[in-house]
């Protein structure tokens, strides 16, 4: 290697280190800001709950409706903040993953109940096609990988219409498993497909129907899947629906 090349490498390494330090500082700043925001929002959450429970006296139906709406708005704000916190954590260089051999069927079955009420309110059917035999294990951080499927299911329910169906399938390969999550909802327009995993991106058709979102769900999902050495892809057609395919390597003990 020439001295020139070595010099260039050293320079690039220093630059990379500088970028990492800057990124870390930015993450720490964001972490501090989100923490500071959570404190007053927690106080508002508790106040609304105490009001609605009658801890602080009674009020009219009209007042109650306003308090309920205030409480819902505050919950939405907390949820958005939580999404930002998770996205920020997953981006940071030193974020820890506590992996263990895990059964994806079990993880997904545990998540589904969270979405049943919102699905039922839109007459959306969520179906899991359970495999005939127990799935081989994958080495994942159960909490983090749950976020992936929570984000995908939330989108599927949010962007589906009355009477649509969401279907989960499992496929076992030689050294991996694939989980597909298919909906018959809005679909992703062709011109938006290359951007959907970008941070803060939201397709025009979802903005049009005024559904709330940060544009962080799929960004975070991809980030987490890739940190597990897995992959995520999708097939979608506008107005027909979207299928996401998540592939995760099997635990070595199961190979």
């Amino acid at each position: 290697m020439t001295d020139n090349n070595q010099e260039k490498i050293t320079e690039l390494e220093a630059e990379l280190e500088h970028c990492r330090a800057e990124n870390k500082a930015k993450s720490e700043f964001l972490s501090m800001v989100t923490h500071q925001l959570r404190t007053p929002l927690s106080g508002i959450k508790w106040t609304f709950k105490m009001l609605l429970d009658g801890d602080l006296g009674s009020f009219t139906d009209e007042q109650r409706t306003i308090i309920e709406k205030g409480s819902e708005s505050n919950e939405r704000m907390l949820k958005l903040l939580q999404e930002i916190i998770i996205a920020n954590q997953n981006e940071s260089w030193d974020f820890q993953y506590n992996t263990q051999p895990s059964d994806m069927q079990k993880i997904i079955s545990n998540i589904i109940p969270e979405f049943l009420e919102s699905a039922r309110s839109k007459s959306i059917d969520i179906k899991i096609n359970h495999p005939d035999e127990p799935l081989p294990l994958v080495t994942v951080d159960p909490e983090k990988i749950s976020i992936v499927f929570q984000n995908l299911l939330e989108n599927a329910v949010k962007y589906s219409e009355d009477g649509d169906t969401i279907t989960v399938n499992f496929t076992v390969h030689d050294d991996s498993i694939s989980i597909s999550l298919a909906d018959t909802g809005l679909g992703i327009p062709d011109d938006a497909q290359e951007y959907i995993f970008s941070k803060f991106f939201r397709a025009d058709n979802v903005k049009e129907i005024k559904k709330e979102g940060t544009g962080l769900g799929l960004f975070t999902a991809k980030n987490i899947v890739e940190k597990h050495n897995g992959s995520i892809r999708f097939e979608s057609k506008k107005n027909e629906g979207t299928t996401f395919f998540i592939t995760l390597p099997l635990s070595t003990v199961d190979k």
Partner: protein
Amino acid sequence: MNEQKVFIIEDDDFLRSLVVTKLQKENFTVGTSADGADIISKLDDAQPQLLILDLMLPQVSGFDILKEIREHDTWKNLHVIIFSNLGDEEDIQKGTELGADDYLVKANFTLDELVDKIKGILA
């Protein structure tokens, strides 16, 4: 029923007042502090059965307060619930390793749920 005494260390005045209001409605005797300075003498004065502990505090951090309590002859077995908006796994793990009975992230819990946890621990 014997008097049940809870002590809360929380630096945010508004949050502290809400917790106090809720706990007093549930017939707990509540002592408070906005920081963890001289924690042992504060506990000696209040004689609580349980401490609700915030983590990000002026002067002494909640983790250091918990460590001090766990190393103190009189108070080492005091029930402690960490009640913080720090919700990273490493914080939760640290709190658990230092001997907290429970770790609740404020934004994810209501005060009813906090009361249930306290009752469960003191039952």
